[in-house]
């Protein structure tokens, strides 16, 4: 899916940088003059995947647009931890309106720039899974349908984390949240159909849809850069673990993202106008248990009497992703 395969340079393009690679071949994050669009001093938890994902994405977007970028942010963790009066961590123009309207606010900004003839200024809308898949869904769909020139980035940590880890429509089955406690005959979140917003975005036939994780920085940057080269409605869905909400150690954030990809839980792909155009193949497949075990939100599936049936169901869902997207060679 990347633009070119890199000759063997020890770590190739797996790492953020590589002293053996020419600077322009390294990631945006490797640059010593990187913008740090989301700068230090924010109040995210230790090891927050969203803080990392946001810096990755916005730095890449800033690089791709030569700094001519405005962001609209939904209410949520990202907004709260980055802009508590009197401090803001954002280094570029940024506005927060409400929980469910990030896509619409971004539409407005884009319209303003167009009316003013400032076509070089681009717009990004950001929200968590709650603000995107649930309360912001209407505005998101409207923005897609109108093909407004907005890149919408969803940071998916699979629950309403900011308000105390409640279930959202992005919460995976069997996961513990404050509103899907691991008690009773069906502990954790229900097994439903899920709500695959990337696929829904594809159904709107917008010019570009992609999924990414914080474990593969180069891929994420490539996708954001590619998105910024396109005009019209675009959507990127980034998987960002939440150590606090998932009950995982703070240092495992990137590792968990990697495992989500390698187990098939989170397919990484890109699509244009409703057709999948590329997938990130699984490099070393792992069973879903390896992914579930380090997270306390799945702890009730393990222990003295492991819930083998539920784990098998989760494995089946991962296997389905693998088949559906062709994630294994």
């Amino acid at each position, binding site marked *: 899916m990347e633009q070119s395969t890199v000759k063997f340079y020890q770590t190739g393009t797996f790492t953020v940088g590589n002293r053996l690679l020419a600077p322009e071949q390294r990631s945006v994050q490797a640059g010593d003059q990187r913008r740090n669009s989301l700068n230090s001093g924010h109040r995210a938890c230790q090891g927050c995947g969203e803080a990392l994902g946001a810096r990755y994405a916005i730095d890449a977007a800033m690089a791709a647009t030569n700094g001519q970028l*405005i962001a609209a942010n939904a209410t949520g963790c990202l907004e709260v931890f980055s*802009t508590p009066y009197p401090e803001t961590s954002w280094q570029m*123009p*940024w506005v927060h309106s409400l929980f469910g309207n990030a896509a*619409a606010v971004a539409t407005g*900004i884009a319209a*303003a720039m*167009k009316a003013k003839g400032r076509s070089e200024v681009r717009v990004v809308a950001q929200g968590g899974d709650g603000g995107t898949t649930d309360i912001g869904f209407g505005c998101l769909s409207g923005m897609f349908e109108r093909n407004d020139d907005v890149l919408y980035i969803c940071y998916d940590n699979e629950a309403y984390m900011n308000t105390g880890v409640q279930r959202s429509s992005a919460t995976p089955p069997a996961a513990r949240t404050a509103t899907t406690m691991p008690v009773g005959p069906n502990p954790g979140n229900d097994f439903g159909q899920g709500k695959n917003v990337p696929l829904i975005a594809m159904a709107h036939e917008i010019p570009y849809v992609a999924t990414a994780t914080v474990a593969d920085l180069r891929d994420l940057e490539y996708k954001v850069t590619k998105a910024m080269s396109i005009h019209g409605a675009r959507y990127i869905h980034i998987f960002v673990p939440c150590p606090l909400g998932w009950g995982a150690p703070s240092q495992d954030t990137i590792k968990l993202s990697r495992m989500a990809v390698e187990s098939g839980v989170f397919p990484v792909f890109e699509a244009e106008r409703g057709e999948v155009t590329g997938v990130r193949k699984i490099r070393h497949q792992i069973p879903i248990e390896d992914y579930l075990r380090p997270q306390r939100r799945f702890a009730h599936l393990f222990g003295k009497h492991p819930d083998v049936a539920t784990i098998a169901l989760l494995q089946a869902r991962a296997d389905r992703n693998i088949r559906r997207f062709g994630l294994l060679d």
Partner: protein
Amino acid sequence: MLEQCEGSHAVAKAVALSRPEVICAYPISPQTHIVEGLGEMVKSGDLKPCEFINVESEFAALSVAIGSSAAGARSYTATASQGLLFMAEAVYNASGLGLPIVMTVANRAIGAPINIWNDHTDSMSMRDAGWLQLFAETNQEALDLHIQAFKIAEELSLPVMVCMDGFILTHAYERVDMPSQEQVDQFLPPYEPRQVLDPNDPVTIGAMVGPEAFTEVRYLAHAKQMQALDLIPQVATEFKAKFGRDSGGLIKTYMTEDADTIVIALGSVLGTIKDTVDDLRAQGHKVGVLGITSYRPFPISAIRDATVKAERIVVIEKCFAVGIGGIVSRDVRSAVRNRPQPVYTVVAGLGGRAITKDSVNKLLLQAFNDKLDLLTFLDLDWDIVNRVLDREKSKRRSGPVAEGVLRDIGTVASGAV
């Protein structure tokens, strides 16, 4: 230039003359003709540069305006009734952020029961949200107020709601004097934002403010509205100088200087009231009319001064507060506090019921003798009301109230109740 046109068209034209850069619209009766008119003007190229966005809900409409206004574009939208409520979160957000958006509210009743006709319940539901609220009496004033609204909003950095009675003004054909583009350009300069999203000078807008600063922020919103009490008359004066007519301002008085009884109201009903007052004056009654144009900020001093000599005040309002009584009258009461004048609340015209000269005449005659209840529902059919109340007392499964009333009125074929 003089034109004979629909009220909505006049407003659309006035908005277009004000050179908005972003218009976002979701259709709802009775605002539809305004946004349709503007949409056509943008699509044909008559209004440019301007982006017209067909949004998927009113919540999106105001949100788009918030985004565009924060990015420095002059932004406009319109709604009514249910739509205003659906965007309620955004209404507070726009004023909280201090964005000079102008929005037309084509006043309409709020359901349930669903009702598309005029009253002031919708605007009143948002009276405390921090927007300025200006009420137009005529189609001319409606178009004039929009031009003034952009100027006021941008000077204060606060959003302005221009309220005009749905159907009565929006769909009525009247003669109006439409200004020229040059006139409007001279009166209304391009938008200079106080805060703007600009990559060349980045800021963060919309921070989370905690207990240590929230009170100050809210007070500042109030302080700005207090500034508006000076600015609104000032703009009206400037408008008169430029366009040659009285329009806008805080209040308008008619024969109030020697009046014993002053009738206070908002919007188009003032026309009916003034006609009735003419008749009563001819019969020797000393009665006058005070029209409130600026409902927010509420012109306490102006009203207080204008009513200093009156013996009584009658407030005719197209809204009421369930469980307590009048809305406008309570605000008026606070303006005339510590005075012995009784303030009579008359709730009239709800859901588009016509307010007739005849009813107003009878009402005022009662008022002159202080024979009016403190709270009156004008032209209420007590039979129907009592029938429903009795039915509810006698039966548990008394049925939906609205349908029951309609049946009683006989507009619906009766079945077993």
